[in-house]
């Protein structure tokens, strides 16, 4: 065991302590009235608990805690030692040794532990209130949080989380240290810093006790402070800040503003009321001063009842609480300022903004051609405004994926019953937002994937147990942002995909000849090939083999991509990448022959002058790109079905694009600017044309086709 391995040391140490405990208990049997033996038994248990809890042996710590508490009762004279305590102590010792031996407790060992604790509780009813020690529950109930004066951060964070339900409270803390404060080693500045860490503070210092310089004792504390603290912490936590200086200072803490709206009379208290509640003056004195019909504060100071510092502090308090209440009311009002809008109106707004963007492109072109500076500057300003309008409109259209994900719960519940499986559904990132239309069009593909997972992926409980997995399978659906895309990941811990079976089926179906060499990834891709299904007997759950190819084309129709990964025996992961919004894309405008194309900017890695590119020495269809070889093809020959001599490629540009980790180069004749546009569908007739996925109208009213980069890279890599 190396010196720097505390868990290993702990095992050794606990072993020794348990041996000692055993010896002590046996001696106790002979001499029950030996307090030093009781104390030693207690201490052994206490050390095992303390060090164990530090090292994460939670089960051990919570068990030992109760046994230790029984010995504490005897040690403190609240209970008598008995033969049964010694017997139970010995059993507990064995149980602790058993926990140490195997971190994963089996049911029987756990049952033994429960039985020992039950008997202890029966013998010592005072133990009933003892339970598992947990740091978090302690700070909530017992007041003093983990760290006292020295480390306020820990106090602050503990309390902030536990006291959050009660909302924010504003306290007025009057902190007047006695002169000898410094002599007990306390630093008031650190206390103020600690308070500041609990929440928002206003700290008002008073110098009124400061004597003349020749009377000043440099080791005495003359200053005092009023602190207004708005915090989620409870009063006890605030009081705890002062626990080590309680005797060295006068401390008064009052709650002056609760977090609820009921008492949110904006005006708060009159200055006189504040002064009275601070215990500085009596109501009678206030009444007398008010009768003078001048500023109350002035009168009180004049009369020598108060210092101007004290009046100022009260004024600051009044201002502060008013400010808090105003903020709160405004927030409450704002939270109600939302209206419901018919989604069709939103849709048409988004469409109009899209048209706006396209129309502006025309204006920008006219402005550029005209060479008119004024027109150009108007056009440019318009462009930035349109961009803002577009962002706002898009934002209106976004909804959390929760809308979609929450419908899966019922589906999983019903389906798993029907299939006789035990499944736990885990939803993550449900607040990720996507275009509402995208979410609607994702519903069917997602349902299909989840059905597949439940039907083919997750095994029946008994089979899982045989495979050494928990009975209950886990299906996880998680959404997260990834650049201009949202990544949705559906994963299960089921049986995974059998690549050989996929391979054989593909050969059977004539999708492969059987001679191909394929990467695992390419084999998984086959699952999404048209007409592919691995189960011969289609169940009524996942349908009849129309499955994954339809799912893929749906997702590609959304401008997204799907990617399957699996480990046999361990599960399957399906990654779906979806653009944040459908309506508008930012693309790179290029020309191939006399036709314009748009390449989604999200896919473009780089544009390179083809004449500067190094071709691979033997395979002319590969180029060197950043240290690796990348396949490329000429779009001209791709679209014109010409066989593609590469001799004319001299002036061409190479656009390196990637999708789903596949990188290819595309040869084009000319590269223009980036261009934002609404993508129009090509209509039913042309929706399956390979290589293009839509069309856009250019500024000069000509048409550009949107390249289907996902499809092109897939072809390119296979090429």
């Amino acid at each position, binding site marked *: 065991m190396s*010196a*720097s*391995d*505390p*868990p290993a*040391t*702990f095992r*050794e*140490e606990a072993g020794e302590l348990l041996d000692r405990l055993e010896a002590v208990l046996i001696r106790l049997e002979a001499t029950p009235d030996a307090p030093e033996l009781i104390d*030693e038994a*207690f*201490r052994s248990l*206490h*050390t095992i*608990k*303390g*060090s164990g*809890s*530090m*090292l994460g042996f939670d089960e051990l*710590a919570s068990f030992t*805690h109760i046994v*230790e*508490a029984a010995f*504490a009762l005897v040690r403190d004279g609240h209970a008598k030692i008995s033969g049964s305590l010694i017997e139970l102590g010995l059993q507990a010792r064995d149980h602790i040794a058993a926990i140490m031996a195997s971190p994963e407790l089996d049911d029987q060992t756990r049952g033994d532990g429960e039985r020992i604790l039950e008997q202890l509780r029966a013998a010592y009813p005072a133990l009933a209130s003892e339970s598992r*020690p947990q*740091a978090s529950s*302690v700070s909530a109930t*017992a007041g*003093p*949080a*983990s*760290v*006292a*004066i*020295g*480390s*306020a*951060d*820990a106090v602050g964070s503990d309390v902030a989380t536990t006291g959050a339900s009660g909302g924010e409270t504003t306290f007025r803390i009057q902190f007047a240290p006695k002169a000898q404060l*410094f002599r007990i*080693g*306390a*630093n008031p*500045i*650190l206390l103020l810093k600690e308070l500041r860490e609990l929440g928002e503070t206003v700290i008002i210092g008073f110098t009124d006790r400061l004597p003349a310089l020749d009377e000043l004792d440099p080791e005495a504390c003359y200053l005092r402070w009023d602190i207004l603290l708005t915090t989620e912490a409870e009063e006890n936590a605030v009081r705890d800040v002062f*626990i*080590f200086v309680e005797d060295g200072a006068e401390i008064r803490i009052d709650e002056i503003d609760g977090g609820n709206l009921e008492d949110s009379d904006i005006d708060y208290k009159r200055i006189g009321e504040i002064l009275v509640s601070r215990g500085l003056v009596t109501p009678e004195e206030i009444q007398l001063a008010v009768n003078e019909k001048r500023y109350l504060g002035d009168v009180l100071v004049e009369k020598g009842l108060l210092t101007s510092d004290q009046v100022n502090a009260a004024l600051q308090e009044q201002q502060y609480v008013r400010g808090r209440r105003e903020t709160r009311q405004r927030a409450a009002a704002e939270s109600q300022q939302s209206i419901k809008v018919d989604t069709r109106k939103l849709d048409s707004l988004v469409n109009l903004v899209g048209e706006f963007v396209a129309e502006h492109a025309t204006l920008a072109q006219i402005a550029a051609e005209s060479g008119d500076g004024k027109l150009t500057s108007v056009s440019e300003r318009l462009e930035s405004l349109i961009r803002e309008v577009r962002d706002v409109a898009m934002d209106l259209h976004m909804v959390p994926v929760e809308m979609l994900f929450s419908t899966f719960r019922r589906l999983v519940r019903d389906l798993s019953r029907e299939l006789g499986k035990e499944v736990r559904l885990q939803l993550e990132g449900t607040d990720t937002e996507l275009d509402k239309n995208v979410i609607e069009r994702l519903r069917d593909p997602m349902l299909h994937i989840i059905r597949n997972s439940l039907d083919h992926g997750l095994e029946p409980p008994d089979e899982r147990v045989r495979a050494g997995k928990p009975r209950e399978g886990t299906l996880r659906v998680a959404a997260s942002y990834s650049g201009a895309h949202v990544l949705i990941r559906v994963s299960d811990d089921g049986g995974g995909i059998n690549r050989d079976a996929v391979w054989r089926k593909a050969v059977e179906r004539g999708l492969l000849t059987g001679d191909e060499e394929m990467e695992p990834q390419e084999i998984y891709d086959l699952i999404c090939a048209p007409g592919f299904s691995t189960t011969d007997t289609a169940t009524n759950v996942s349908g009849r083999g129309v499955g994954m190819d339809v799912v893929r084309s749906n997702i590609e129709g959304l401008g997204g991509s799907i990617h399957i990964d699996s480990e046999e025996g361990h599960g399957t992961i399906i990654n779906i990448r979806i653009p944040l919004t459908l309506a508008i894309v930012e693309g790179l405008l290029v020309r191939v022959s006399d036709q314009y194309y748009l390449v989604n900017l999200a896919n473009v890695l780089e544009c390179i002058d083809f004449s500067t590119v190094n071709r691979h020495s033997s395979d002319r269809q590969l180029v060197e790109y950043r240290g690796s070889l990348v396949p490329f093809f000429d779009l001209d020959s791709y679209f014109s079905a010409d066989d593609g001599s590469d001799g004319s490629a001299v002036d061409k540009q190479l656009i390196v694009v990637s999708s789903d980790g596949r990188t290819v180069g595309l040869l084009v004749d000319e590269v223009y600017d980036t261009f934002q546009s609404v993508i129009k569908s090509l209509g039913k007739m042309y929706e399956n044309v390979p290589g293009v996925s839509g069309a856009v109208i250019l500024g000069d009213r000509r048409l550009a086709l949107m390249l289907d980069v996902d499809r092109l890279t897939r072809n390119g890599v296979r090429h």
Partner: protein
Amino acid sequence: MNPEWGEDRLAEKVLIVDDSVSMRQMERMILTQAGYEVVEASDGKDALSKLSADISVVVTDLNMPNMNGVELVEAIRAGDVNRSVPILILTTESESEKKRQGKEAGATAWLTKPFEQHQLLKAVRKISEKVRF
């Protein structure tokens, strides 16, 4: 290791007192990684013999044979060597009475087990700051 803790610190010495070897190891790891120098003692008596003027902070367990934590605090405060050294006592939450006793004996702060690494560092750093004031 951790710049937040290790930076511009002239290897301050911390005396850790605990009868549990694994606790001492753990505290040593946490503190030395943060740039502190560590002296270990296995109980109160041992600690008193190792307390010197150049110790910046004492971190002590309460339940120990020979001389327990509260007795140690009392002895340090009543002694001649480094009597105003900041003392952090480690308690478990079942020891609220001990915590009181520790405070009354003159401990500077307490930390409840189980604690996180950063909590120990913060506590040690803050109480050593306090005396520099």
